[in-house]
């Protein structure tokens, strides 16, 4: 079994090292690194902008490039967080806490190199676990009937909405909205058109690219216009500044291990995004530190551990996405959408049927991470300069790229109206503090959830207990109930405490 994994991985390296694949992977990593550094541009909007470009490509390089954008942006995000106190990417919000104080102390370069080391170590660990755990997961996945698929997707949806930033209720609301948007179009069972309002363009579902670009592109521009000038300030980081001292290395060694562990544990749970793992890793470090007061003042542990956790989690997130077809977060949902567009059904069969994609992707992670480390050392200076592109040039150009990108995905101008619609809706929802990213989760999973829900109940002749009678499905359902009960508990306790505070005051 292990031997099989190793030979498969070897095959994967062969795929990833083909010049064409390597080139697209490199392009993805570079672009991701760039947008990760820039505020107002995220991995999600970039991936959705470039998604149409991949339609004409072979699926392997397409997926390698999209995945490269994702983990490239993870590296880039740390740069903005540490040097400029800008959390351009949610998981790096925690990194700001100690990373930016280090920069002010003149140790920004050290923080960056420690970040790179911990990212690389954690990503490698994540990849190794992925290589050996995936075949096991596939074995389990073959036991999956419609009831199990529905139960595990429900768990993913619930976890995704409760673990998002902000109120779990509002996260749930957005997931439901996503499910609803996923319903728009022709019903696959009866052929009836639902929620199309007589528009023929809507019979073929809402376009994934249009939805993503509206929510993460146009909505962001509407919110940031005239409020964001540019992020950057003058900042010089030379190669020599980046060399950590032995003391720095010693201090960050154990936090890196602990962070990786946290990321790995949470990696197995679908729906928990990388952000939550960074918070837990940071809290853990502070709890066990001999002198917790150093945190927030430039403690290197506070940079090393959360970054390791985020990267381990990021790699492991690919496992449920690829082998079960359940994306852990919106970025994964977009990647899943890309696979579906290329006619590849993620699921237990993916690893055997599309071995080139799966093992090529795994191998390209490694190559991509090596490339990132090599790239980032000389390129940091350039990234810092790029942070000074004014937003007033950035967003009009991006609007044009969005328009062209959406048009080219189906050669249909109607989809630009969709972008505009979701842009306005997204901006409105963000103004009301809704976490819009989970909409994408609901949208991508919607049709699969409905299909499996219907099928399970047809098989059981309408008996809803079917979800609790089969052991695997029952386990997932119990996990769902625990999740909701836990959220309720925290909610009630929070309210009770607030009341107590008010009474005392």
């Amino acid at each position, binding site marked *: 079994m292990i031997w099989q994994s190793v030979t498969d991985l070897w095959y994967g390296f062969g795929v990833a090292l083909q010049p064409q694949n390597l080139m697209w992977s490199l392009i993805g990593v570079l672009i991701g690194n760039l947008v990760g550094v820039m505020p107002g541009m995220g991995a999600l909007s970039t991936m959705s902008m470039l998604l149409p*470009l991949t339609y004409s490509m072979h699926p392997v390089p397409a997926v390698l490039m999209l995945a490269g954008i994702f983990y490239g942006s993870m590296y880039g995000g740390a740069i903005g967080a540490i040097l400029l106190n800008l959390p351009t990417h949610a998981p790096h919000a925690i990194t700001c806490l100690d990373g930016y104080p280090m920069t002010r102390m003149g140790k920004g370069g050290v923080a960056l190199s420690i970040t790179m080391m911990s990212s690389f170590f954690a990503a490698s660990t994540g990849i190794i676990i992925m290589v050996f755990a995936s075949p096991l997961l596939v074995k389990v996945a073959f036991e999956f009937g419609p009831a199990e698929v529905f139960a595990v997707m429900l768990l993913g949806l619930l976890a995704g909405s409760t673990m998002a930033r902000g*109120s779990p*209720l*509002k996260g*749930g*609301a957005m997931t*439901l*909205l996503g*499910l*609803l948007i996923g*319903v728009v179009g022709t*019903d696959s*069972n*009866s052929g*009836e058109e*639902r*929620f199309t309002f007589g528009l023929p363009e809507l019979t073929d579902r809402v376009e994934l690219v249009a939805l993503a670009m509206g929510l993460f592109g*146009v909505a962001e*521009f*509407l919110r940031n*216009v*005239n*409020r964001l*000038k540019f992020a950057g300030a003058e900042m010089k980081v030379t190669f020599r500044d980046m060399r950590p001292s032995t003391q720095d290395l010693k201090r960050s060694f154990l936090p890196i291990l602990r962070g990786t562990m946290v990321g790995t544990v949470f990696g197995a749970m679908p729906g928990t995004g990388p952000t939550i793992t960074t918070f837990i890793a940071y809290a853990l470090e502070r709890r066990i530190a001999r002198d917790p007061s150093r945190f927030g003042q430039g403690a290197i542990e506070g940079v090393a551990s959360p970054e390791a956790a985020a990267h381990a989690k990021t790699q492991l997130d690919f496992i449920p996405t690829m082998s079960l077809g359940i994306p852990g977060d919106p970025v994964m949902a977009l990647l899943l959408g890309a696979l579906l567009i290329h006619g590849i059904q993620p699921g237990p069969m993916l690893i055997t049927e599309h071995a080139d994609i799966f093992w090529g992707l795994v191998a390209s992670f490694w190559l991509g991470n090596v490339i990132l480390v090599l790239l980032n050392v000389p390129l940091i200076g350039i990234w810092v300069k790029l942070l000074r592109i*004014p*937003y*007033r*040039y950035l*967003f*009009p*150009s991006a*609007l*044009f790229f969005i*328009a*062209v990108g959406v*048009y*080219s995905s189906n*050669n249909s*101008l109607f989809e*630009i*109206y969709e*972008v*505009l619609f979701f*842009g*306005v809706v997204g*901006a409105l929802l963000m103004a*009301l*503090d*809704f976490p819009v990213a989970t909409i994408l989760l609901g949208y991508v999973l919607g049709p699969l959830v*409905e299909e499996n*829900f*219907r099928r399970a*109940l*047809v098989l059981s*002749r*309408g*008996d809803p207990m079917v979800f609790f009678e089969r052991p695997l499905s029952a386990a997932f359902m119990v996990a769902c109930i625990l999740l909701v009960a836990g959220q309720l508990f925290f909610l009630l306790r929070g*309210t009770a405490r*607030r009341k107590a505070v*008010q009474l005392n005051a």
Partner: protein
Amino acid sequence: MPEHPEPKAPALSSVFQRVHKDVWSGALFALLSIAVILKSRSYSIGSLSHMGSGYFPAMIGVAMLLVGVAIGAGGWLARPARVEKPAAPPEWRAWFLICLSLLLFVTFANHLGLVAATFATIFVSALADRGNTWRDAAGLAAAIVVFGVVVFWWLLKLPLPLFTWE
């Protein structure tokens, strides 16, 4: 940031701000859910063992209604507790121009061709930012037109005519 005048809350928005944001969020969501439920009833509902095309959307609608009410109720209870930071002043002109720029892209791409559509989109949306003058916007638009024609039309063979008149 260019110097903003201190945001003076107009009468209308102060009414909105007196109630917690979540009350509005919940109400909006509950309204939407009712529309969803009503619309779902126009499709065949069926039974649990043989679901019609309206069953699943109706289920979502009911769940949305519950969540919407819960959000609204939570906001109502939390009403006096939170002091929200003063909102940035609304950017009506910028919002209008950004939306207009996308509409112009569709219209111009249909009737005048890619070059006009590109120029219009970037020119109009660039004017949304107060930091851009007419000249800045025109310059940026011209630069991106050249880039767009080379990359999308010439290299990627975008099936839109450069110039047309319809």
